[in-house]
């Protein structure tokens, strides 16, 4: 739901800032993730001037580059997963683990067609009590992330598989940035199928419970990277 941009100077300013229209009403109150505050403080010129990383007033932050994450970008989004849904694992899974798998959906409707993704970092948090009970076991866990089709459709191509030692801390995994565009449709959303299986044949003491999933998405909007912004040689 978008509110039509009011005519006049405010609309012109919104367009200049690359925003089609202002969000309608007040947003749902939720805490700002610490990583976003950290990135904001590092990129804010006033904060940067006061900090030790600022060598001199002329040493500007590199345009269209998120130094802290080491990628090109001028837009960073923290996207919480919506509609995390657990489903039973396939009985024919190689490990035979009866733990559930999850489907998570990320709303990317606000990502403009002109933006190019440079980083897509998935962050998963597991319920603390269950994570402790589940324990890493001898072989730890294996996380697999696949593109998920629409409801009823089977899982799509696997984006990554990686070993996870413990579940007490958030699990971070970098997805191929192109995945955020490839799965786009109207309304645009990224649907992922997540599975956490024991890394060894021994069954885990308990299944992990996914408590929270979010996506840190960095994109470059080339319209906001004009040549004048580049530092002079």
């Amino acid at each position, binding site marked *: *739901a*978008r509110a039509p941009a009011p005519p006049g100077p*405010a609309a012109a*300013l919104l367009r200049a*800032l*690359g925003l089609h229209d*202002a*969000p*309608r*009403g*007040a*947003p*749902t109150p*939720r805490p*700002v*993730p610490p990583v*976003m*505050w950290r*990135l*904001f403080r590092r*990129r*804010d*010129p006033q904060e940067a001037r006061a900090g030790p990383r600022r060598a001199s007033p002329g040493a*500007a*932050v590199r*345009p*269209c580059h998120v130094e802290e994450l080491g990628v090109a970008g*001028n*837009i*960073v*989004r*923290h*996207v*919480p997963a919506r509609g995390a849904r657990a489903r039973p694992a396939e009985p024919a899974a190689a490990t035979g683990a009866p733990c559930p798998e999850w489907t998570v959906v990320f*709303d990317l*409707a*606000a990502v403009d067609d002109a933006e190019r993704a440079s980083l897509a970092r998935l962050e998963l948090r597991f319920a603390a009590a269950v994570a402790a009970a589940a324990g890493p076991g001898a072989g730890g866990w294996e996380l697999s992330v696949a593109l998920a089709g629409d409801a009823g459709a089977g899982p799509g191509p696997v984006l990554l598989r990686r070993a996870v030692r413990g579940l007490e801390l958030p699990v971070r995994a970098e997805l191929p940035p192109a995945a955020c565009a490839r799965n786009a449709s109207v309304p645009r959303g990224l649907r992922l199928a997540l599975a956490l299986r024991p890394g060894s044949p021994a069954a885990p003491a308990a299944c992990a419970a996914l408590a929270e999933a979010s996506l840190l998405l960095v994109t470059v909007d080339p319209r*906001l*990277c*004009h040549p*004048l*912004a580049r530092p002079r040689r």
Partner: protein
Amino acid sequence: GAEAALPGGACRARRLYVSFRDVGWHRWVIAPRGFLANYCQGRCALPAPGAPPALNHAVLRALVPGAGPPCCVPARLSPISVLFFDNSDNVVLRHYEDMVVDECGCR
């Protein structure tokens, strides 16, 4: 909120503060609450000690009667970052170049 531009002053950066509350964006902009955008205003005459830097062309123009005075415009700008909620309640950090006038010059 802008510093009033009085006629007759030399070209320099004047204070212009953009408050996100004043433009009604305070409900979705998380930080900053506003920023000092500034603007350039003032008379561009022949360069004098302490005057803002002028392009050679601006000096020529100031010398030629009838050509009109050079323009007082931003000579150095800096970026800002804005943290806000979008329509999907995602937290977004966007970086914008050339939002703050640091220095004015005659061009």
